[in-house]
């Protein structure tokens, strides 16, 4: 088994953990971390799977760089909203939904 595949396999586990985390964790900071785990998992698979034969492929690397910036941006947005919510409601969890 090549290094690339080990990375990809780790990515699969991280992604699954991230998804479970986003669905299960109520605390918003934890949920944001879980989301980042998901992203990292996907990035690892993108690079690892493409390089399973051991050759370096610059295209997925560039994609991952782009993806990281996007995910930084999304994380910043989530943190800013969480901070604002905490300031307004004093809670780090989402209020229960009401249909109306």
């Amino acid at each position, binding site marked *: 088994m090549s290094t690339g595949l080990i990375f*990809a396999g780790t*990515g699969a586990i991280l*992604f699954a953990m*991230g*998804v479970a985390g*986003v669905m299960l964790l109520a605390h*918003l900071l934890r*949920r944001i971390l879980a*989301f980042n785990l*998901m*992203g990292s*998992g*996907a*990035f690892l*698979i*993108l690079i690892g*799977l*493409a390089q*399973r034969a051991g050759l370096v492929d610059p*295209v*997925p690397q560039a*994609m991952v760089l*782009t*993806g990281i910036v*996007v995910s930084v*941006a*999304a994380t910043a*947005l*989530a943190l800013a*909203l*969480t901070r*604002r*919510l905490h300031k*307004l*409601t004093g809670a780090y969890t*989402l*209020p229960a*939904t009401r*249909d*109306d």
Partner: protein
Amino acid sequence: MTEFFDPLAWLILLPLFWASGAFLLGPTRGARLAIVGVAAQLWLAIDLAVKVGDGGTAIRHAVGGWGAPLGIDLIADGLAAAMLLLTHMVALPLLLYARGYFAADASVARYFWPLSGFLLAGLNALFLAADLFNLYVTLEIVGLAAVGLVAAGGNATQIAAGLRYLFATLIGSGMYLLGVALIYGAYGTVSIATLTPLINASAASAVWIAAALMLLGLMLKTALFPFHYWLPPAHGGAPAPVSALLSALVVKASFYLILRLWLGPFAPLTGTIAWLPALLGSAAILWGSWQAIRAVRLKMLVAYSTIAQLGYLFLIFPLLGPDGLALQAGGMQVVAHGLAKAAMFAAAGAMIHVTGRDAVADVAGVASRMPVSLFAFALAGVTLMGLPPSGGFLAKWLLIDAALTQGQWWLVAVIIAGGLLAAIYVFRVLRQAFLVPAQGERRHLSHRAPPLLEWTAFTLAAASVLLGLRGVDLLRLLAVGSGP
């Protein structure tokens, strides 16, 4: 080699320019810049639709001059051109509406203009993209800009709705991204045109997983039942022009992408499970309508109606056939609902603006005070109910025709039931509006709605109805570049 004023490139560049410009210049001049920019974009979209429609073939723009698969291509076929046209036909009246709506509230307006610019840029880029990874980036622009617009109001409900929406959209794009990673791993490319001939029914299981992940992620972003939980608070809680943009356009973008993938690269994989989206779509129609019927707040009613109307779009998947009826029905429904729902949110916003209250019950007496807004609401309702001569009616006709041709009787029943349920929630509002209000309640109707708010809503509603008379033209455009 293309000309300098290539509409494909400028449809993406222009909104980015005016979004940055609006940020630099501040809200007042930013608003003017935005409206001029969107007007120019509308002209470009019309120009593109004419070119695509008359030329009869898709138009391609190779960014960087490399061409796929090394570079990224932009492709405008009939479906993309129709979506771009819809986007700007909705956006221009809505931005004018927003100018009136935010006139009193500079703090929200400050970031509305640049954010709506980024949203439009993202939508245009998404409709034109022909590269799976590029699509991921455009999806994120659209998703994050939409979340921003929901949250920009800044009160606790809006922030919470924004966060809920943010997590939904991030899980959706995360699943999509994982799918892209697997596809790249399997085929070494993310260009849709290059991929399409490579994928067949004997593809590796990783490709099947990728397709499932991408389609599911996009369904989450489209708020298909049962992934709809995030939509009502987001669309019902945002300021009216934002709700209108989101309901009319943003959810359509991810649907557009589902359709693209379903008909394109994933076509060999999806044949056997086409009934699943239709089943979920049927559930969406019934559940969304039911929630709209019992909603207390007016904007919630409209938001749940969006869930129901999105359901219709997913009914087309088992009906996609060589006759193209189902695809035509889907395209017609996207355009008709986009115009109508924008109009409905705009009209509801104008009513709430004047009455100062958000409950369906408070609409009583609006018929005599705001006839234009009510008329706009009613015309939009005609489209949602699928009554003639609206665009929604043509969509329903085509859909029933497709279902009957394929012998899918249960879909006919769902479509008919959906129309009647829509009538219940639309007439719930109209009935209330015609009621003579009790004497004490009149004081809430003290000031008049700005005419700009009322008439932009009316324009959108009238367009959704008049679309019913131009059905042939839209279908001719949709046919360009579709099918084998």
